[in-house]
C-alpha cells in the first residue's frame, strides 16, 4: 500500500505530456480535415438512408446537415486541446463529439478510431495543460513544471494494452502457421517500388506474419528499456510506415509513431517544445517554475484516480470477452470489435435478402443497392449482427409499404482467409423472429474448416 502511494506521489517533468497534447491535437485536426476533404462526411454519413447502430445505442443518429457542424465542433475542440486552451472543456467536447461520430454508423468502425476515442477519454483526466499551454500562459497559478509520474505512465500503459493485445490476437493458426491473410494480400502489391519484387515469396509472408506478431508483443518493452529505446523507436517508424505503404490505413501509422514518443525522456520533449517556442516566439522558461502539480488527497482526486483505474480494468477485460462465446471468433465475430484485432483476417461475403409473405408464400428479393452504399453492404455481408439489423430494417420497411405477414430470410455466403465461399447465416431462419442481443447467435452456420 505504501509502495502504491509512494508511486502515486512520484513526479516527473510535464514536458512529455504537453508535447503529446500538442501533437495528438494537431494530428486529430489533420485527420478531420482529411476526412472532410475526401468527401467522406457526405459519402459515409449523409448519402446513405440507413445506418447501422451499435447494440443499445440506436438513439445515436446522423444529424443530417448538422453533421458538418459536428465535425467543425470536433475539429475546433481538437485544436483547443492541442493549444491547451480551455483544456478540460475542449478535451471533454473532443471526446464526446469524436465518439458520437464513431457511434453514428457501425460500418465505419476502425480500431484506430476507437483508440482515439479512449485515448481522448483518458486525456480528460490528465494535467496536460499545466505546461506550455494557453491556459497556463493566461493563469500563472496553473503553471507546473512537474506532474505525477502516473499521468505519463497511463498513456504508456494504454499503448502497451493496444500493442500486446494486438500481438496476442495474431497468435492463431491462420496467422502463424498459414501466414494468412498476408499470403493473400501481399502478392497483389507487387507493383510497389523496391519492395514489390519480394511480395510473392513464401518466406516473406512468414517473415511479415511472425515479425508483425513479435513486434506487437515486444515493442513496448524495448521502448521502456532505455538502452534499446532509440532502436525500438526506429522499428516503430519502420513498422508503421511499412503498413502505410502496403495498406490503406489512413492516419493510424502517424498517430502511433507520434504517440510512442511518450516513451522518451523529457529532454527530447523539452527540445521539441523549445523548437515550437522559437517558431511561435513564446517563452518556454516561464513554465519552468519548479512547481509540482500535486494531486492532494482530495475527494476529487480520488474520483479521478478511481475513474482512470476503472478505465484500465475495462480496457484489460473488454478484449477478452470473446472467451464468453462458443464457435470460431473470426467467423461469428462475437467479441471481435474493441479488441485490437487489427488487419487480422480477410473476409468477404455476399448476402441476398428474401422478403416472404408468411401466409401466401409469395416472395421477392431485395436489391441491397437500394438501401445501402457499397461499404455498408460489404461490411454487413460478413457480420451477423449487421445482417440481423438490416433484416429488421427491411422487414419494417416493406411492412410499412403495405406488405403483409413479412418474413425476412437471407441467403448469405462468406469466405474467411481464402477458405472459399460457404453458407454463412442459416437461410431457413426468419430473421424477423430474432431479436438483436449480445447473446450467442446460434443461427450462424458453423465454419467448415
Amino acid at each position: 500500500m505504501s509502495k502504491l502511494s509512494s508511486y502515486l506521489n512520484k513526479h516527473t517533468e510535464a514536458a512529455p505530456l504537453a508535447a503529446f497534447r500538442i501533437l495528438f491535437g494537431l494530428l486529430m485536426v489533420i485527420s478531420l480535415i482529411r476526412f472532410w476533404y475526401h468527401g467522406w462526411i457526405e459519402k459515409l454519413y449523409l448519402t446513405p438512408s440507413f445506418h447501422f447502430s451499435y447494440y443499445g445505442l440506436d438513439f445515436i443518429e446522423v444529424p443530417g446537415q448538422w453533421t458538418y457542424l459536428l465535425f467543425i465542433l470536433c475539429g475546433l475542440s481538437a485544436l483547443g486541446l492541442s493549444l491547451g486552451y480551455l483544456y478540460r472543456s475542449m478535451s471533454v467536447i473532443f471526446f464526446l463529439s469524436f465518439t458520437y461520430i464513431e457511434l453514428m454508423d457501425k460500418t465505419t468502425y476502425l480500431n484506430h478510431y476507437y483508440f482515439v476515442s479512449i485515448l481522448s477519454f483518458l486525456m480528460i483526466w490528465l494535467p496536460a495543460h499545466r505546461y506550455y499551454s494557453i491556459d497556463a500562459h493566461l493563469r500563472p497559478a496553473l503553471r507546473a513544471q512537474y506532474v505525477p509520474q502516473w499521468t505519463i505512465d497511463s498513456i504508456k500503459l494504454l499503448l502497451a494494452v493496444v500493442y500486446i493485445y494486438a500481438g496476442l490476437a495474431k497468435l492463431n493458426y491462420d496467422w502463424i502457421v498459414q501466414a494468412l491473410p498476408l499470403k493473400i494480400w501481399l502478392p497483389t502489391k507487387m507493383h510497389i517500388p523496391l519492395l514489390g519484387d519480394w511480395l510473392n515469396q513464401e518466406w516473406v509472408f512468414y517473415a511479415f506474419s511472425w515479425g508483425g506478431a513479435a513486434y506487437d508483443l515486444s515493442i513496448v518493452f524495448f521502448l521502456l528499456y532505455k538502452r534499446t529505446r532509440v532502436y525500438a523507436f526506429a522499428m516503430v517508424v519502420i513498422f508503421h510506415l511499412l503498413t502505410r505503404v502496403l495498406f490503406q490505413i489512413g492516419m493510424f501509422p502517424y498517430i502511433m509513431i507520434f504517440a510512442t514518443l511518450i516513451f522518451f525522456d523529457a529532454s527530447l520533449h523539452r527540445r521539441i517544445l523549445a523548437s515550437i517556442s522559437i517558431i511561435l516566439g513564446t517563452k518556454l522558461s516561464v513554465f519552468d517554475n519548479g512547481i509540482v502539480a500535486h494531486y492532494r488527497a482530495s475527494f476529487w482526486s480520488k474520483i479521478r484516480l478511481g475513474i482512470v483505474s476503472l478505465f484500465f480494468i475495462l480496457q484489460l477485460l473488454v478484449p477478452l470477452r470473446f472467451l464468453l462465446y462458443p464457435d470460431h471468433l473470426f467467423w461469428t465475430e462475437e467479441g471481435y470489435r474493441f479488441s485490437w484485432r487489427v488487419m487480422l483476417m480477410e473476409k468477404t461475403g455476399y448476402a441476398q435478402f428474401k422478403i416472404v409473405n408468411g401466409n401466401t408464400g409469395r416472395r421477392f428479393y431485395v436489391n441491397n443497392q437500394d438501401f445501402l452504399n457499397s461499404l455498408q453492404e460489404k461490411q454487413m455481408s460478413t457480420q451477423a449482427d449487421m445482417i440481423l439489423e438490416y433484416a429488421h430494417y427491411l422487414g419494417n420497411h416493406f411492412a410499412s409499404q403495405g406488405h403483409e405477414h413479412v418474413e425476412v430470410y437471407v441467403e448469405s455466403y462468406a469466405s474467411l482467409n481464402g477458405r472459399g465461399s460457404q453458407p454463412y447465416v442459416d437461410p431457413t431462419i426468419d430473421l424477423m423472429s430474432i431479436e438483436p442481443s449480445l447473446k450467442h447467435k446460434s443461427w450462424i452456420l458453423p465454419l467448415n474448416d
Partner: protein
Amino acid sequence: MKHIAISKVFIHSFLILIAISYSSCTNEEDCCSPKTPKDSSFDREAMLTQWAENMIIPAFEDYSSALKDLAVAQDNFAADPSADQLAAMRDDYINAYLAWQSVSLFDIGRAESIALRNKSNIFPTSEEKIAANIESSDYNLELPSNFVAQGLPAIDYLLYGIADEDADILNILSEPNYELYLATLINRLDVITDDVLTDWKDNYKAEFISNQASSATGSIDKLVNDAIFYYEKFLRAGKIGIPAGVFSGNTIMAAIEAPYSGIYSKEFFDEGLNSFQNFFNGTSVTGRPDSQSLRHYLDYLGAEKDGVLLSELINDQLNKARTAAIELSGDLQNQIYKDNSKMLNTYDELQKAVVLLKVDMLQALNIKVDFVDADGD
C-alpha cells in the same frame, strides 16, 4: 552524443520510409526504370495495357463505327423515306445495340464521368417524355430526367413502337419533327461515344495503365468492380431478374431490354454475358490478340476452391447460365408470358456466379467491393 544517435537513426529511417511511402502513391512511370517481367511475377501493367489495347478501345471502336453506320442509314432514310430504307436503318440499329453490349461494362474514365451508360441505355424508356420532347422541341438531353427519353431504348421505341403497322411507322418517322428527334438521338450517341473513345486514345489510356495501385482507386480494382457491378445490376438484374419479377414478386414485361423490336432481347442478353466472360478470360473477338486477364491472374495467385481452380468454377458457372438461357425464346417478353420459370432458372444460374465473383474472386484478388475510398485498419 546520445542525442546525435537518436536524431540520426530517427531521421534516416524516417526519411527513407517517407520516400518509399511517397513514391508508392505516385505513378511508377515517373520514378522507376521499367521492370523486366519475370516468370515469378504477374505483370499487372501488361494486363492493363492489353485490356486497354485489345479489349476496351476496340470495343468502343466497333460501337462507334456501328453508330456511324446508323447515322448514315438515318440520313438515307430522311432523303428517301421508304420501307427499304427503314429496314436498313433497323438493321444498323440492331448492330449498334449489339455492339453496345460489349462496351457497357467498361464504365470507367470518360464513360463514367459523362454517364455514358445512363445516356445510352436506360430502360424502360418513357413514351410520354419522348412525345413531349418531340412536341415542344425545347428539351435538354443532359438532364437526368431526360435519360429515359434518349439512347438506344428511345430509338427502339421510335423505330418499332411508335405505331402498330410498319406503314404507319414509316409515315410518322418521315414527319420533320420526328425525323429531327431521331437524328438528334443518333447523333448524340455518336458524339458522346466518340468523346469517350478519343479520350481513351489521347489521355485516359496512359493514366489507366500507369495506375497500378491495389487500392480502391487503382485501375484493376476499379475495372473489376465495374465489371462485377455490370454483371450484377445490368446483366443479371436488368436483363433477366427485374422483368422476371425477382425483385418485386410480379413479372414486369415492360422492363425487358428493347421491348418494341422484341425479338432481339435474348440476343442482347447473350451478347452481354459473352462480353463479361470474354473480359474475364481475356478473349478478344476475331482478329485481335487475346489478353492476360482475370483468369490468368487468379491462376497465377493459385486461387482454388475445394481443390478446383476458381477460374474453372467461374467459367463453368457462366456456361451454366448460358446453357439455361438456350431454353429462352428470342423474345424475352414472350418467354415471361409463356413460362417465366425458365427466366427464373436462368436468373438462378447467373446468381450462383455472383457468389463466386464477389466472394471468392474478390478475396483472391484482394479487391474490396468498395466504391468508397475509405480507410481500413
